[in-house]
């Protein structure tokens, strides 16, 4: 093989491999998108970093004493091999020693998370006020009672009822700074389809622009 042939064949291989790389990268953009109904275990890095860090070993799944984590299979709409849970099926029990994080060899579940109450798996939202029976004056309070950060992440707020003969409504209100997104509320909701759900925080949380400040009287 002379030099010209060598350069040509190398260029051919490089071009083929580059095209393959382009195809794989484009596919991975699709394959990396996590649907809103699948939640990551506690301590998971932000989604964009998670896909690079997680080595898909499933040690977190095995470490979970409640067996509520799963590894995604090829064909599911969840990045293949990565851990997730579905709040409606089984929420995170928020173990104090966070065994799933301790088991992670890659730090895709950040070992810097030492207090489970600082976890951010998502944020609960009362997504259907028409279906939630608390808004109809019934005292359900199941989500309030099951919440592991009881009285902080979900509070019952008193509202006067407009209906004749009904004195008060006890409305579940989620407080974002305390909610860890464990999903126990969604799991426990007594309706056929949950009226309270846990979603990735960025999908539901509002935020003031930095130059806007609330005045003491509450106006902008």
């Amino acid at each position, binding site marked *: 093989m002379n030099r010209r042939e060598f350069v040509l064949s190398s260029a051919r*291989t*490089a071009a083929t*491999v580059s095209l*393959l*790389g382009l195809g*794989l*990268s484009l*596919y*991975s*953009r699709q*394959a*990396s998108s996590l649907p809103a109904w699948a939640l990551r275990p506690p301590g998971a*890095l932000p989604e*964009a*970093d998670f*896909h*690079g*860090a*997680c*080595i*898909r*070993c*499933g*040690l977190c*799944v*095995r*470490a979970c004493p409640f067996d509520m984590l*799963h*590894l*995604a*299979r*090829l*064909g*599911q709409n969840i*990045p*293949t*091999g990565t851990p997730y849970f579905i709040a409606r099926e089984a929420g995170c029990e928020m173990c104090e020693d966070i065994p799933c994080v301790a*088991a*992670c*060899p*890659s*730090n*895709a579940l950040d*070992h810097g998370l030492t207090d489970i109450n600082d976890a951010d798996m998502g944020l609960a939202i009362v997504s259907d006020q028409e279906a939630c029976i608390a808004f109809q004056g019934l005292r359900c309070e199941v989500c309030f009672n099951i919440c592991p950060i009881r009285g902080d992440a979900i509070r019952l707020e008193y509202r006067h009822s407009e209906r004749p003969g009904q004195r008060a409504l006890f409305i579940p209100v989620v407080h974002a700074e305390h909610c860890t997104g464990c999903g126990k509320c969604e799991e426990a909701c007594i309706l056929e389809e949950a009226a309270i759900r846990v979603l990735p925080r960025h999908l539901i949380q509002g935020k003031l622009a930095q130059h806007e400040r609330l005045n003491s009287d509450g106006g902008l």
Partner: protein
Amino acid sequence: MADRGRLSTDPRKPWLKRHRWLLLRRFNQLGVLFMFLLGPLFGAWLVTGNLSSSMTLNILPLTDPLLLTQSMLSGSWPATTGFIGAGLVLLFYALLGGRVFCAWVCPVNLVTDLAAWLRRRLGIRGSARLSRNLRWWLLGLVLLLPVLTGTMVWEYVNPVSMLHRGLIFGIGWAWLILAAVFLYDLLIVSRGWCGHLCPVGACYAAIGVAAPVHIAAPRRDQCDDCLDCFKVCPEPQVIKPALKGRTLRSDGRQDPVIDSIDCTKCGRCIEVCDRDVFGLRLGWRGNR
């Protein structure tokens, strides 16, 4: 030479002796798999995780070094157990020869060996020409993509982890990828996956570059050119320099050692040879 790629079997050599390495290897492959399956199937959690990273008896972490490297190249810093696990795996295969993983542990080997066996049985001779160096290009790609995209791109298609994880955690549609590898090996390129493309194997080959365990052909003068060893070898190009090469060692004698890092040390050449040409050879490079 036997017809259509079949092996020339000397009736005086018992079947067990002709297959002892193969049986040992299958025992090891299935044994490793069985250890991982003890938990999910019988609730005996001796080993958890999968080949990407595992924990044995709550004390021994093992991590695939290529995966951990990709994880780091994407910009993340692994936990201590990850580093220890990868270090142990590196040490093990640096001593034993990297591609021992391919022949003795990797579950995809069961699939590609089946394809190779069927190829021989069915007399499928044709094979598209493909450079065996492609795997090094792919290894480069596998390492480059996490840097460029921040995502472990290879893990979305890697048949090795797809199969092993699939068997333990549920396979989904990943069996299609394995079916593709099987058909590709059977019909398109002989030993096409493990011997030409797999970047995982290439990485392990590099890890074992200085390993002191080799297959050698010390009785090469007894060779009767039946070509059986070439037919069963997953990397037949590695045999020729040791068996027929004229390279001399520094002391002026012929060097019959298979030196290539591509050799998987499967031992098939040792057992199929009716003339007992091959054997194991231990020793560091330079003083064997």
